[in-house]
């Protein structure tokens, strides 16, 4: 099975690291580490996915933040992380 999947970015919260409208590759088989950009299920809306930088791992709480100040911060579980972006 291919462990890679394509990610289409919308929104500016990761500007200029990720450009809205561009497609990136993420890997399912990589363990997320602090500093990685990860794709995760939105903890506030399971129908949507988010892409943010992983800044803190505290037990099973993974803190995800954007690059711009107006981005929201999320706390997700390991299970909610779908993959790690390859840049």
């Amino acid at each position, binding site marked *: 099975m291919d462990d890679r999947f394509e990610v289409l970015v919308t929104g500016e919260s990761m500007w*200029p690291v990720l450009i*809205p409208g561009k497609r990136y590759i993420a890997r399912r088989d990589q363990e997320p580490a602090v500093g990685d950009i990860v794709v995760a299920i939105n903890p506030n809306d399971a129908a949507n996915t988010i892409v943010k930088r992983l800044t803190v791992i505290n037990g099973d709480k993974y803190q995800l933040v954007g690059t711009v100040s*107006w981005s929201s911060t999320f706390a997700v579980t390991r299970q909610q992380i779908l993959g790690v972006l390859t840049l």
Partner: protein
Amino acid sequence: MKSLVVSAHCDIPCGIYEPVVAKIAARTVARMTDQMLELELPDMTDKHAVDHYVSSVARRTAVKEQHAETCKRELETLWSDFFKPEHLEKFPDLHDKFWKAIKAAGTCKQETAKDHADELLTAVDEIAKMFYEAKGVPERFAAYQEITDNLYK
């Protein structure tokens, strides 16, 4: 019989005046300014990224322009329709405050600078304080601040 032509003080005398709208518009101007100053230039060889950047800045500029104009209009309404000559006795710098606030809104349209956005916010707050004092409800200034200073916290 002689007739006397008189004019009403307001186009439609609704009696509804409130500086919150001007403050929200000023906060929007400040927010757009902050975001534009923060948006980093993308890799200029990446056309897609450059296109997106230009679009992002253009949209924020349009919103800044529109809300600065709203702020001006709201301030002008307070100045011309709510405040009366008798208020000058209590607030001798009333005209100066309005003039500076409206000029600041214009400067915010011309430039993208945090200093000007902050100047507009301060000027609107000063007018709001006068407004609530003139209405005889100075305690409402705190409620005004509570609402308008916490719009996106």
